[in-house]
């Protein structure tokens, strides 16, 4: 029998060690009672899982036999560009999931938030309970709560229709959210409104519109 096939040698293999660590993180750690002050939450278990996988991947890659020196210039350039882009993809992807899981943003028709009306969801988004950046309340007030950089929006449905001649309240507000100050700026306020186009989903926009125009958009 070859030495590397001995059971003890197999147990010391980096992949085996990684499996033990992952079993510990996902099977043993959740069983630790909360009162011990040592129970690792989901975010931290995912965090440490990444490092276990990263460590074992690096060790295994370093054990690889030498790769081929590519013959054609095109293939060489392609390989270099691929390594470069994949390397950048790793931290960029971590950043996409790090601050908050995107899936945590309440959406209409999803699980326990199913009972939320569009206007209720709009109110949550308005006050920053989601991934809409920046949230409306940083600059605007709703029922007296929020920032003062922009106008109060509680009764905006009554005045939005007269802001631009021939433009309905709904069209005005929708365009204003999507295009920001480039579309229009209310007199007496600085042109601070960012364009949300590309940064807001259709559902989020509908929810905010429902809030601003009153439930259902009447």
């Amino acid at each position, binding site marked *: 029998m070859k030495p590397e096939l001995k059971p003890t040698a197999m147990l010391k293999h980096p992949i085996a060690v990684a499996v033990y660590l992952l079993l510990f993180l996902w099977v043993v750690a959740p069983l630790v009672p909360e009162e011990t002050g040592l129970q*690792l*939450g989901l975010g*931290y278990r995912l965090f440490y899982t990444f490092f276990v996988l990263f460590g074992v991947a690096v060790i295994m890659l*370093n054990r690889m036999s030498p790769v081929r020196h590519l013959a054609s210039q095109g293939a060489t350039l392609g390989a270099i560009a691929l*390594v470069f882009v994949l390397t*950048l993809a790793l*931290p*960029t992807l971590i950043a996409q999931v790090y601050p908050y899981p995107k899936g945590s943003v309440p959406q209409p028709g999803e699980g326990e938030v199913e009972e939320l009306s569009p206007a209720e969801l709009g109110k949550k988004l308005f006050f920053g309970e989601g991934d809409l950046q920046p949230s409306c309340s940083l600059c605007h007030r709703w029922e007296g709560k929020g920032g003062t950089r922009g106008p109060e929006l509680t009764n905006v449905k009554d005045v939005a229709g007269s802001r631009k001649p021939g433009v309905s309240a709904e069209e005005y507000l929708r365009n204003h959210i999507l295009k920001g100050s480039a579309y229009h700026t209310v007199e007496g306020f600085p042109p601070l*409104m960012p364009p949300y186009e590309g940064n807001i989903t259709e559902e989020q926009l509908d929810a905010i519109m429902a809030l601003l125009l009153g439930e259902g958009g009447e």
Partner: protein
Amino acid sequence: MDIPLIGSRGALWLVSELHLFLAAFILGAPIFIVVCEYLGHRSGDYRYERLAKEMMRVTAIAYSFTAITGGIFAFILWTSYQSFSQFLFEKFGPAWMIYIGLIVLEVILMYVYYYSWEPWKDRKMLHIGVGVALNVVGTVVMFIINGIGAYMLTPTEEALNWWQMLNNDSWSGLNLHRFIANITFGGFIAGLFGAFMFLFSRSEKEKAFYDWMAYIGTLIGVGSLMTLPLAGYIYAKELFLYSATISTFQMADRLAPFFVMQGFLITFIFTGVIFYIWTSIRRIEGAERFHRYRTPIFTAVVLFGTLWITPANMLPDMVTDPEALGIPVGAVIIPERMAALSLMMPKALAVTGILIVTFLTYMIYLRALKTGRITWGSIAPQAQYSLIAVGALIIYLMGLMGAIRELSRDDWHVAMQIRDMSPYWWVPPLAHTATMTAIATILFFAVMAFIFWVGFLLGRKEEVEQ
């Protein structure tokens, strides 16, 4: 005037980062180019001379791109942020004049240094003297623009003149940090260039040279990178002494996740460097007995990295309530008895641990060299790919740290004095920042790949034909 599609801030962000990457390179590379030229002159080892000359060729082409991106940067700043640009030009008038005058002098010195290489080959010390002068002028240029950048974050209260504004509380910290960071950057880009050229080389002689060049560039890069944490602490301390609010905003509020990302990147960089050194050790004949240290070394660096990055919580700011989002508090806040791991002391120890492990790895490499024999050019190609990955991460890290410094002002152009009244006043989340940084990094890589190609691969064909 707003910029279509990406907006004024997006455009300014990408162009300024591209400009700064190029500027860091043309300031950092000449420092070790002169050192290499001097080493070649003293030791008689022609490889140092060739390394210096080839890097200078890359640097000379990079100067043009730096000027082009600087012009576009100034144009966007003027057109999109007029009143703020006017403030900067009015208040720092004499500083700008000195800045422009020194840039002209720097370009003249650069051309003299580059084109006098052959004619002055018998007057080497004079040539090296021009190189030193080029570096001194380049460094002063950087200090001036650092002063203006530092003023925006830590403005001098009741400043009477431009000098008092320039000489603000975080100027020296930023100068020190950027000076070292530029050498690091120049070293790693030389490593990237060596790796790039190695992979394109076909003859054993060329492979041997570029293998050695990638090694020297990386050695300089890592050597100066190891001193950067200390310079970073000094800079952070200056910011803290100026206003604790800045530090809180950076380390415990909106920018805290950005520093977690910094930890990820630095851990990846050191792991990449250690990967490169171990691949180097593998090709040393007679050094097999050192291979048993490889797994413990990688385990240690990843462990220290994990300890360093472990955050106190995973919340994007100080006001977000995870329960309102339906996320259990325990999922995103460190367990009570592990909270000590998120304090500065264990983190400082972890960073020190990473530095010690890297140093130990290099010591093992030197020991392996003494007992075995190295054949330059025989390294496995994956070592060069690891240097390309390290190069990508270094550029990305620099872009991210630049964004952190800019975003530390929150919604101010000049902290507590001039408010950002544009539609882009808000601090973007980490995800957006990371995407912007990745785009800027790819743009810079494209420019550098073009420079390597036009300066060397095209030229090499001509040399072969001649």
